[in-house]
């Protein structure tokens, strides 16, 4: 066995590196716990915080909660959707700024709103394969501190200017500069291939599935009510660390009512010819925030006297052809979940919690409607009929993105840590471990879904 300069490695960690890959059995990947900072509406408490600031804060809270100071973690993976080019090594920089051992490797991942969940799945797979014994998954996003690029015209001029060698050459390059080139290019939630914003895309889907304004408002209302109750019950006491004076998600409206939500004017789908139903109340706002999840092998968790809340059972990604209008932009989970459940021999009745990310209330309701639709089940999923329906009392029981807000890449970590804690509290159901389903839609017509189980 060669040491390969792996300083700081404990004896038990070496043990897992001594067998050859072929002989190494697949292990279980544990969720130890998580930490996030409260999510803040953009332009609010975190306006002056960068992605790196927030991710470092979320990491440091996790480190403090689990006593990971100076620990060399197997790998840290995180990402941001709105990312400055200078943040090419965002996660590694956050690790270096944290209390973790500086010998902890890290990589960035970017899969739109599925970024956070995908880091969990990727790292869990490495743990399962015995490549690493511990990992931190995470995500961060700042809509307040979003990168603004120069226009394409100015960018070409600046690059040519840099290549120009003589003064006349430089002057000639500069002479190409026009006033319109000076307008900055800000990021948007628009889809590059359709030019439609995410909200306008969802409005198409919401209308397609005939989702009513009332149903959307009710989902939003439940999200606020459930999140508020979770705070009151102390649910987030060991999931969240305050940041910049914020101790709760600033988007949470504990006192909102269905009546108040009903008064809001529609903001998306106003030119579709059908009634516009999507408001600021039943859509997620732009949000800043960061989340982290600590993953480990059973041995590593035990050796460090750490809790084991749940296991990462399986995950599935899907994508839809929204460009040609075959399916709605955010409908990929409607395909990913049936494939994932079929592979695991499960039905929707086998779950105790459903965490369906509330990008828009219409997204959740359209997905559920598709699963309950015979035609969709037969023609699109290849089943004999409808995929199934869920017990709504198991849906987003401690609130979701409509109340908490949605800092794109941070949502996955929020959901995984919360669900793991709920599963651990639930323990076993009818003699089997409590089970939870996570579904997250993402830009580009993508979706990532996963199954977690209590131990």
């Amino acid at each position: 066995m060669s040491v390969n300069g792996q300083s700081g490695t404990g004896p038990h960690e070496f043990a897992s590196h001594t067998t050859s890959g072929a002989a190494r059995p697949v292990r279980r990947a544990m969720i130890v716990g998580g930490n996030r900072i409260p999510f803040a509406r953009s332009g609010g408490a975190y306006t002056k915080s960068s992605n790196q600031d927030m991710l470092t804060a979320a990491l440091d809270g996790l480190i403090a909660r689990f006593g990971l100071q100076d620990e060399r973690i197997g790998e840290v993976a995180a990402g941001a959707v709105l990312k400055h080019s200078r943040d090419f090594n965002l996660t590694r920089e956050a690790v270096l700024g944290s209390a973790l051992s500086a010998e902890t490797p890290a990589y960035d991942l970017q899969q739109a709103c599925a970024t956070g969940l995908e880091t969990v799945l990727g790292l869990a797979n490495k743990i399962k394969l015995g490549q690493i014994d511990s990992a931190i998954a995470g995500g961060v996003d700042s809509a307040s501190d979003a990168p603004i690029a120069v226009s394409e015209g100015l960018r070409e001029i600046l690059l040519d200017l840099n290549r120009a060698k003589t003064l006349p050459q430089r002057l000639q390059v500069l002479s190409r500069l026009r006033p319109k080139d000076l307008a900055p290019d800000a990021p948007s939630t628009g889809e590059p291939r359709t030019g439609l914003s995410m909200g306008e895309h969802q409005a198409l889907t919401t209308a397609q599935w005939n989702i009513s304004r009332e149903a959307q408002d009710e989902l939003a209302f439940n999200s606020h009510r459930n999140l508020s109750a979770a705070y009151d019950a102390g649910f987030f006491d060991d999931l969240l660390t305050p940041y910049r004076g914020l101790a709760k998600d600033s988007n949470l409206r504990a006192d909102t009512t269905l009546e108040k939500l009903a008064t809001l004017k529609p903001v998306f789908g106003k030119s579709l010819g059908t009634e516009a139903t999507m408001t600021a109340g039943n859509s997620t706002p732009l949000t800043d925030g960061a989340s982290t999840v600590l993953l480990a092998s059973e041995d590593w968790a035990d050796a460090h006297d750490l809790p084991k809340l749940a296991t990462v059972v399986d995950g599935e990604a899907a994508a839809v052809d929204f460009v040609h209008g075959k399916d709605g932009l955010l409908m990929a989970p409607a395909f990913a979940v049936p494939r994932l459940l079929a592979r695991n021999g499960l039905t929707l009745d086998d779950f105790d919690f459903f965490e369906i990310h509330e990008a828009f209330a219409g997204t959740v309701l359209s997905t559920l409607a598709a699963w309950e639709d015979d035609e969709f089940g037969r023609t699109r999923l290849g089943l004999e009929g409808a995929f199934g329906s869920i017990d709504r009392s198991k849906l987003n029981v401690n609130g979701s993105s409509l109340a908490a807000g949605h800092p794109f890449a941070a949502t996955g970590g929020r959901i995984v840590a919360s669900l793991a804690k709920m599963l651990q509290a639930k323990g076993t159901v009818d003699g089997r471990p409590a089970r939870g389903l996570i579904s997250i839609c993402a830009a580009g017509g993508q979706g990532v879904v996963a199954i977690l189980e209590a131990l």
Partner: protein
Amino acid sequence: MSDKYTTLVNQGVGRNIAKRLGLPQPALLRRYKPGQSLVTGPILVQGSTAGADQLAATLLSWDLDVRRHAVPREKLGAIILVLDELNRPEDLEKPVLSAASSLRDLGASARVITISRPAAETASPAQSAARQGVDGFLRSLAKELRAGATANGIVLSERVQSTSPSTLAALRFFLSGRSAFVDGQFLTVATEQGNLPPDFEKPLAGKVAVVTGAARGIGAAIARTLHRDGATLVLVDIPAAGDHLAAVANEVRGTALQLDISSAEAGQRIIDHAVRRHGRLDIVIHNAGITRDKLLANMDHGRWTSVLNINIAAQLRINEALLASEHFRNSPRIVSVASTSGIAGNRGQTNYAASKGGVMGMVRASAPLLAANGGSINAVAPGFIETDMTARIPFAVREVGRRLNSLQQGGQPSDVAEAIAFLASDAAGGINGDVLRVCGQNLVGA
């Protein structure tokens, strides 16, 4: 939190001006740092009893520079007055007056320490008078000392030797820079219990300690001091203070537990966290506390109950859980933060003073319960300490609060932390049910 006046009068021009105008000249106190020598010069041990001889021999065995007779004009680090066999007031004369002739030889931040017996433990009027006399003598002498020098006393119960573990531990505490802001105070060593640590630099090695209210101020200082002394830490504070708590936890390599100590399950959650994460629980420091000041005439229900609930009721509930737990039976130590407000009273603090008086009452009555498992419970009562909280007091009031003590300055959070770390150590195991003030000998309220 800095005391600019003290800095000013310890520099050239400022020193001269203060001297000429007769202004207070607070000294820069010698505070403990790892590796620092116990005292700044030779120790003069006064007294001719067997206890004095044994003590001098022990000090010599620690390689300290010990004198049994004063050498004229030699700068001294400390004078120890062993008065453990007083029978009548006249017995004070010889040791006291010979110590008097050496007072001018005391260096900066030097120490005078008396070792005596409790007046309450004798039936003889003359003996009780002599013993009680030590109290008045020491407290007055403390007010006469200058340049950061302090005077404190150790009171030994009848059966306790002058070289018992806790006597020696208390002596080391008073001699060292750990007691910089403790002045004019007595510690009572009630039993021969206690174990001196193998390494005096790491007296808490191997111990798991919980500190409540650890996110900032005195609590954060306690965390740093216990960590320096070798303890593994669980740091508790309310969830809303979690960011500061995490920063302290990462600094001292402990774990953060966001928890409202006034919740019904707080005690059990503290025990579970310590045992599951760190395998054991040895020390609990009740530091969390709040103030909601108001004259009693204007006191409302919320101000009264929140202060009483968090400052004392929560401690009582947590202690009940601790005493019932099988995980808190191996020489368990509890130290509570009281306040001089609870002793001397403070205008506008009827609620706070009631809660802190309550802490001292709780400590006294809990002592036998802890002793049953070889443990102890004590309290530390801080006076004016330089914290974010006292920095918000209006300037004039703050200056009065600061200067009205024998050391003419406010204490630092670390001064409180040092006293707590000492009482939390196994070496202090013979001290139980006691209250130690860290107040620079506040001139008000005794």
